[in-house]
């Protein structure tokens, strides 16, 4: 990819005999059962700062959640500091592992290579699952961890993508250019869901849809994330030089188990951002993006038609094709990874048009639907007979236990394409990508006395002094890969490396 990219996943957590009201305390313990790390530094966080140039007064909260919160406060002492709340830590692989609102959350280190990002996403699954196993051994409570986005009772949690984007790309152009793409990419990036939730609940006659998250969006763009969720989050925390960069924080994606779907989701989005930075715009304007994402997700006829601003309709596949062609025109031949993406993007769009079932070895929504259909056929039953049971089976698809999870069973028997190897995933559990600033984090954590860390900053005790290293400047103006650093680099080497990157801006 041509930009720093990362993925944050909030995992669903179930603990035997623990009520949802008390889930936050248990989620904290799960995280604390994971690998030790360096405390997170909150100094550079500003969740109220909006990309559109203002500061929000507050973030909206979810009413159901407020109710749980009220009961929780009356039952147990509440954390007093962000550290007590989040038990946040930075790991040696450059990742962040913490508790967020009842969910263990894992943020991959910044990656430039799609293959690195896939390995780190998979490494995150293993780290979270192993932490849950240790929690189970310690407490004696059975635990399940799900990589999904819904509890089927109207509560959702996210899988967020982060892309570094040039600040000189006007936000309005970014927004209008991205919307038709994001709304239609669920065709391959959707993880599939049994039934419908929320105001659009049609579960009496709709049994399966493309996306886990599509039911949960009410706005196009806002700084909120917990309630009245937007397709595009406008939080302005670049974690890099603010004059040069934005961090595009997308919260509308599903959490994928399929590596192929993850690769397409992230890779095509990075390519589309590249076309927008090159001056291309959106091929169409949607009449109502919120309605369109639900419509595509819930269209059981697989026609996937969307209404444009001029009231004409167009197949969502054709909108994706227009984006693919633009990326092809600009980026074909750039490198192997880009060529793989451009080719597979086109293949998937053709397969979706001709017969989506061909994609059962690559896309989550197809693989899961296929599995459920097989079960129903074997039982001689229909989709509408027992939604609860289908949802229970769906949860098993998303289960992180490599022995029990249905996705991992499919992968093990060779029914899902795999793009990483066990060795790459194992290495990613401990090591950062070598070509981004995440490696500076790994290097400092393993060699120096690091007191706190964040995406943009490291505080290191060096020769009895506290030194702050500004990693925000370790993103140079050309986004060139990080200069190779030796594993035995001295503290002075690290400081010099950062200064050099700053000078190259």
């Amino acid at each position, binding site marked *: 990819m041509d930009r720093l990219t990362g993925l944050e996943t909030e995992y669903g957590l179930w603990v035997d005999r623990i009520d949802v009201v008390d889930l936050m305390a248990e989620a904290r313990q799960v995280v604390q059962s994971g690998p030790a790390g360096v405390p997170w530094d909150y100094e550079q966080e500003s969740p109220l700062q909006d990309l559109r140039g203002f500061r929000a007064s507050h973030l909206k909260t979810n009413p159901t959640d407020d109710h749980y919160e009220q009961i929780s406060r009356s039952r147990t002492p509440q954390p007093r500091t962000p550290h007590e709340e989040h038990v946040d830590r930075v790991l040696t692989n450059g990742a962040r592992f913490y508790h967020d609102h009842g969910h263990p959350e894992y943020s991959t280190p910044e990656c430039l290579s799609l293959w690195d990002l896939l390995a780190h996403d998979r490494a995150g699954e293993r780290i979270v699952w192993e932490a849950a196993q240790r929690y189970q051994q310690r407490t004696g409570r059975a635990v399940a961890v799900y990589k999904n986005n819904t509890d089927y009772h109207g509560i*959702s949690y996210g899988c967020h993508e982060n892309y570094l984007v040039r600040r000189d790309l006007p936000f309005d152009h970014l927004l209008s250019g991205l919307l038709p793409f994001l709304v239609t990419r669920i065709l391959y990036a959707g993880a599939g869901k049994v039934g419908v939730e929320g105001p659009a609940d049609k579960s009496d006659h709709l049994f399966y849809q493309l996306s886990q998250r599509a039911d949960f969006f009410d706005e196009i763009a806002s700084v909120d994330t917990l309630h009245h969720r937007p397709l595009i989050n406008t939080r302005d925390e670049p974690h890099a030089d603010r004059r040069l960069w934005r961090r595009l924080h997308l919260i509308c994606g599903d959490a994928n188990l399929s590596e192929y779907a993850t690769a397409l989701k992230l890779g095509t989005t990075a390519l589309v951002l590249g076309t927008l930075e090159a001056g291309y715009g959106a091929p169409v304007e949607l009449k*109502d993006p919120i309605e369109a994402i639900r419509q595509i997700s819930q269209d059981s006829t697989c026609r996937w038609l969307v209404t444009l601003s001029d009231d004409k309709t167009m197949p969502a596949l054709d909108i994706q094709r227009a984006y693919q062609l633009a990326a092809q025109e600009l980026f074909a031949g750039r490198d192997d990874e880009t060529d793989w993406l451009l080719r597979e993007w086109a293949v998937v769009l053709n397969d979706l048009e001709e017969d989506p079932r061909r994609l059962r070895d690559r896309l989550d929504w197809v693989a899961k639907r296929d599995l459920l259909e097989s079960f129903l056929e074997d039982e001689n039953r229909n989709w509408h007979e027992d939604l609860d049971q289908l949802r229970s089976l769906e949860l098993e698809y998303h289960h992180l236990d490599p022995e029990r999870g249905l996705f991992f069973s499919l992968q093990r028997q060779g029914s899902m394409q795999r793009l990483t190897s066990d060795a790459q995933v194992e290495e990613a559990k401990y090591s950062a990508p070598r070509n981004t600033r995440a490696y500076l984090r790994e290097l400092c954590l393993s060699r120096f006395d690091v007191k706190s860390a964040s995406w943009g900053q490291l505080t290191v005790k060096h020769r009895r002094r506290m030194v702050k290293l500004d990693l925000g400047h370790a993103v140079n103006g050309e986004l060139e890969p990080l200069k190779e650093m030796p594993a035995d680099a001295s503290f002075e080497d690290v400081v010099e490396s950062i200064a050099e990157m700053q000078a190259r801006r």
Partner: protein
Amino acid sequence: MPERKTQPITDQPWTKPNDGGDEGGPRAPDVERPTTRELLERMKRVDPRQARRYRQRSGE
């Protein structure tokens, strides 16, 4: 917000309306359905009410 157009309802979700017809509908998939007997037996043992009990806090 405009009212959503009602789609034809089928008992088999994600089946194209012309599936199996003679108007050049989808061909048989190139990929064999992978589900094995062992996997189906495991699915039968899944607690059918676990999703009903599954409750989460709102995430971002």
